[in-house]
């Protein structure tokens, strides 16, 4: 089946961990936007949700760091973070090993993706799922891009990964939904946590919504580091989602800078025909 849903959202741990410290109105609006995204995903009746997230050393380390990885298991545990810190209860989330394998085999036709039969979720997946599928009743296929430990895969390869995921999703009879998760500009886990380059975020989302491949791939890592912080390397997940939308245009449904959450909290959707 052709991809039934494609979107992108934030995954910052502060969204749950420091929820009580944010402006109530803004937090409620964000939670509502997440809820709507969950409803829209369910409305497309997906058999599985591919979540493209960013590496945070939950599963991989610099001794053996895949540029791209996809989980291949019937279940996954998460979050790895301290439950009291993240304020999300550790749980087992369903996967679909056979479907993962089919998708991985197809992705491998164009991108040398690593597979992982063991995978722990961190906030990159657990925070979005907490809002999108709070009952954990939709099988998840986790995918990972190294956005953390340079050298990082070039943006053009993140695009190729998204294209490969799209071709894979379209090749199976199951109905596949896909989201990318990440921050845009942010300086997480530094003394500058909370710094947000709002103008840069807006421009990035403009390019994303236009699904302008050339403009999305034109950022150098040096520019991103300067203007959007080391957290900005996570644009790779948004870029992969844009590629998976295969030319469809996007809508930013919610975008508000929330310093205590350390990002412009974002919910966006690509208009793939379901």
């Amino acid at each position, binding site marked *: 089946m052709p991809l039934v849903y494609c979107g992108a959202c934030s995954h910052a741990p502060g969204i749950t961990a420091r929820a009580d410290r944010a402006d109530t109105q803004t937090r409620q609006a964000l939670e509502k936007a997440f809820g709507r995204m969950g409803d829209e995903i369910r409305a497309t009746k997906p058999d599985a949700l591919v979540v493209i997230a960013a590496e945070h050393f939950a599963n991989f*380390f610099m001794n053996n760091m895949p540029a791209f990885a996809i989980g291949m298991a019937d279940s996954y545990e998460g979050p790895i973070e301290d439950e009291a810190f993240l304020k999300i209860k550790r749980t087992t989330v369903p996967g679909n090993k056979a479907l993962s394998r089919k998708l991985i085999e197809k992705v491998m036709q164009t991108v040398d993706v690593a597979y992982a039969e063991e995978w722990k979720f961190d906030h990159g997946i657990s925070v979005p799922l907490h809002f999108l599928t709070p009952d954990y009743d939709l099988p998840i296929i986790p995918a990972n891009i190294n956005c953390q430990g340079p050298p990082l895969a070039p943006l053009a390869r993140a695009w190729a990964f998204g294209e490969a995921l799209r071709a894979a999703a379209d090749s199976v009879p199951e109905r596949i939904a896909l989201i990318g998760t990440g921050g845009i500009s942010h300086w997480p886990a530094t003394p500058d946590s909370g710094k947000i380059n709002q103008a840069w975020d807006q421009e990035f989302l403009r390019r994303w919504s236009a699904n302008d491949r050339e403009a999305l791939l034109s950022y150098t890592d040096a520019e991103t580091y300067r203007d959007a912080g080391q957290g900005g390397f996570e644009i790779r997940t948004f870029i992969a989602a844009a590629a998976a939308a295969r030319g469809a245009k996007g809508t930013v449904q919610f975008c508000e800078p929330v310093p205590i959450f350390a990002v412009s909290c974002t919910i966006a959707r690509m208009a793939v025909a379901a």
Partner: protein
Amino acid sequence: MSLYYVQKLIYELNRDPRTRARYEAGRDAVLAEYQLTDEEKGALVKPDIGLLYVLGVNGQLLMHFAALHKIEWPDYLERMRQGLKDHGQVREGVYAATGYEGVEAHDARLKQEREKR
């Protein structure tokens, strides 16, 4: 400098309960398995979050290492700031401090902008 091994030990302490138990039972034996300078060993054992930050430990590792030592989020941020005062700018990696007005001032500015809209 052996930042890689500092980070590897932190990663294993964060993620592997068995390494954590061995470390608690006999710290020196575990430390000896990694190529570490005396400065790095000292920073790990204390733990001196500020110095580890300045040495260049990735924030996605250091954040959890701080939590492991029951250091709360605001205290973690403060210890990194103190590290910058004591030891100067971050020496390696991509987690350098770049200057920021702070969450409270930023929130106040955003609130003003929202009211103008």
